[in-house]
């Protein structure tokens, strides 16, 4: 089953839309798709043209294509367990929250909290992702727990905060405090990063570029060769009784 959702222009384009029902699961279960626009609930069709083509015998046979301006459409793919969502342009916050299966592919950029508390499945973002990519919730002690996120552009601050499992690849740079409080999982940053792995207790992080403002409480464990490059190996965060591994090609301290 192919579903095409095309968001139309709105009178007030700044009011966000909360669309947690845009998931293959909801369409598979034939639910009435309602979304929140500000403090009102409306049927999705009031804001978007929805085309449905074919049938599906399982959630994995459902593909959703999102077109039009979806930069303020939040929570798309929340709790999805299978199937596929493709977004032609940009997507709003919390895309793929709690997802446990299936695939989300974003051809533009994603706003904050992409793949928050994700448990499984796959997210690919071809441009940039905002702050808190693959992170947790406020006060939560475990962020992303499984699955994979790959961002071809750069990401904002607090990327992979509280990450406890799964795999994340960032092809560009990260903002400040990437992998803060990291507990598990594997994060690879191909660009530069800042104050990376602060307070980490476990997990593994590779930085192919430069780690600026290195946290001063990591133990130096020498160098290793990996992927044809020489990485400095750090263990920490000692301040937090941590046992995580940070490998970085270059690093500088704030002086």
């Amino acid at each position: 089953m192919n579903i095409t959702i095309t968001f139309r222009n709105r009178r007030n384009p700044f009011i966000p839309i909360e669309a947690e029902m845009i998931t293959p699961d909801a369409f598979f279960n034939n639910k009435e798709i309602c979304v929140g626009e500000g403090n009102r609930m409306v049927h999705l069709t009031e804001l978007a043209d929805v085309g449905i083509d074919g049938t599906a015998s399982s959630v994995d046979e459902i593909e959703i294509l999102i077109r039009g301006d979806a930069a303020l459409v939040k929570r798309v793919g929340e709790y999805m367990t299978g199937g596929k969502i493709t977004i032609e342009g940009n997507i709003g916050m919390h895309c793929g929250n709690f997802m446990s299966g299936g695939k989300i592919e974003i051809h533009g950029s994603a706003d904050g909290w992409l793949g928050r508390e994700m448990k499984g499945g796959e997210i690919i973002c071809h441009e940039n992702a905002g702050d808190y990519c693959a992170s947790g919730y406020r006060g939560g002690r475990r962020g992303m727990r499984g699955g994979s996120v790959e961002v071809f552009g750069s990401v904002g601050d607090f990327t992979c905060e509280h990450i406890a499992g799964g795999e994340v690849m960032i092809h560009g740079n990260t903002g400040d405090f990437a992998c803060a409080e990291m507990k598990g999982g594997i994060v690879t940053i191909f660009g530069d990063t800042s104050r990376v792995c602060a307070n980490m207790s476990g997990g593994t992080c590779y930085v192919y570029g430069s780690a600026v403002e290195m946290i001063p409480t990591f133990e130096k464990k020498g160098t290793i060769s990996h992927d044809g490059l020489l990485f400095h190996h750090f263990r920490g965060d000692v301040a937090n009784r941590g046992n995580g591994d940070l490998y970085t090609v270059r690093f500088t301290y704030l002086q």
Partner: protein
Amino acid sequence: MAEILLKNAYVIDPISGINGEVMDIAISGSRIVEDASPHSEVIDCQGLLTLPGGIDSHTHTSGTKVNFGRYMSPEDMRAGRTSKKGHMHITSGYSVPTTYGNSYRYSALGYTSLVEGAMAPLEARHTHEEFKFTPLQDSFANALFDGNWGMLRAFEDGDIKRAAAIIAWTLTAVKGFAIKLTNPGGTEAWGFGKNISCINETIPTFDLTPAEIIKGAIKANELLHLPHSVHLHCNNLGTPGNFSCTIGTFGHVPDVNDKRQSLYATHVQFHSYGGSGWGDFCSKSEPVANMVNFRPQIVIDMGQVMFGRTTTMTADGPMEFNLYRLHHDKWSNHDVELETGSGIIPVNYRRKNLVNSIMWAIGLELALLVKSPWQCLLTTDNPNGAPFVKYPEIIALLMSKKYRDAEFETVHQDTEKRVPLPAIERELDWHDIAVMTRAGQARALGIIDLGKGHLSPGAEADIAIYPIKPDEIDPSAEYEKIIQGFAQTEYTIKRGRIVSRRGDAIIDGENTTFWVKPKVPAAYDMQHDTVFQELFERYYSVRMSNYPVQEEYLHRNHCIETETDL
């Protein structure tokens, strides 16, 4: 004036000596009356179990510490959110619900009165503000005195009457209901990061032992003729081997009141541990229960632990710090100058964890091994052992050996060697449960005469009607029905009005705050005592005149004036 006639109610009212009689109950205004008026709204109860409104004699629902538990836990808040519905406001929170959440959910369980277990006097205003937003239950606040410098100094000087006078002034000022001691001496020692490990150990900053504080407080309590006894959270909470401290404490308690106990010991599950460390940790519920069986002057509550996530919060600051060191999770602490401490940490009690499994067993054992249900009341020390919404499951565990055995199969396999639970055959009956959830509380709190905990004419019309037909259920086998039945009343009636119907709060309600005011002769009025004034002047960070909770905070309230022996 609203008038209601409940017909064909299957009534258990232990205080009135009614056990399973199908009868009618007439309500006029806020009270139960002899005869129904012809204009009454008639509700046919069709033989459903009808009990006096539930009373929780030890819970944490309001005040600084509880609110901080919410404040620091957005992950708990999002776990229990409901939206606005009719008269019901939005609620958030699972283990520490918002005030409306507490009130609605307790009401759905048939509870109409709540005792906030620990109110720091300096922060009492906060507790009363939250009471205002707990519309469906009457409120009582235990005021913390464990580290009260004025009282401790009087004890040091051997002046029990002065101590009583200070307690009287403080209770009146903060609109408190009873004397609460939490880890007496320990919270004061925690002011410098220390704790007390034995009731006979002298505390670092006063020439006193916990035993002396407890004995002194019991005497002062009786001098003031307070309705409730001293309400004690023993020293060494949560420590392996603490049962000897608990038994030692109970041994110090005289029998000085013929209407009720002389000491109420709370959440005794947490105080009935054997072993010398976590390695040989085991249940010592048997000696503790035996001690209670021999000592009618003691009433305890269970402090039952149930599996799952919750938040622990207590005035026992040093104990919470120990828990923090074990879990290395988030930890809050809040010492209150000249008075007490407090701490909060989230916990997750796991079936696969041996210590947690033993804790779970101990609470049940206490309830089953204490012979008289009047001496062991049902609590989880909400939310410390579990959120109160688990009460129906606890009731089912106490009524069904089969259910206990089924649950026992799921806990840590070594539990069996450390606890007596599997060997206990006793199953509590409907009457026992009615005692342990309302009648026993009313007696222990000394509020029977205020019309609480019973259904005789003149009593407050606080009534819970459950969708349970006792004659048609075998609790021992059909424990699922017990859980369902106690989870949601058909009707909860508060002060003569139906406040909750099948889980939904249907009116805004308005509660009453009960507080005490001992009548103290002028010579013992601390308001004009220069030494007492100096304590404020020099060491408190608020002025004495700004300390008392103003009447504005009370709205509907009932002041219990007591005659004193000062």
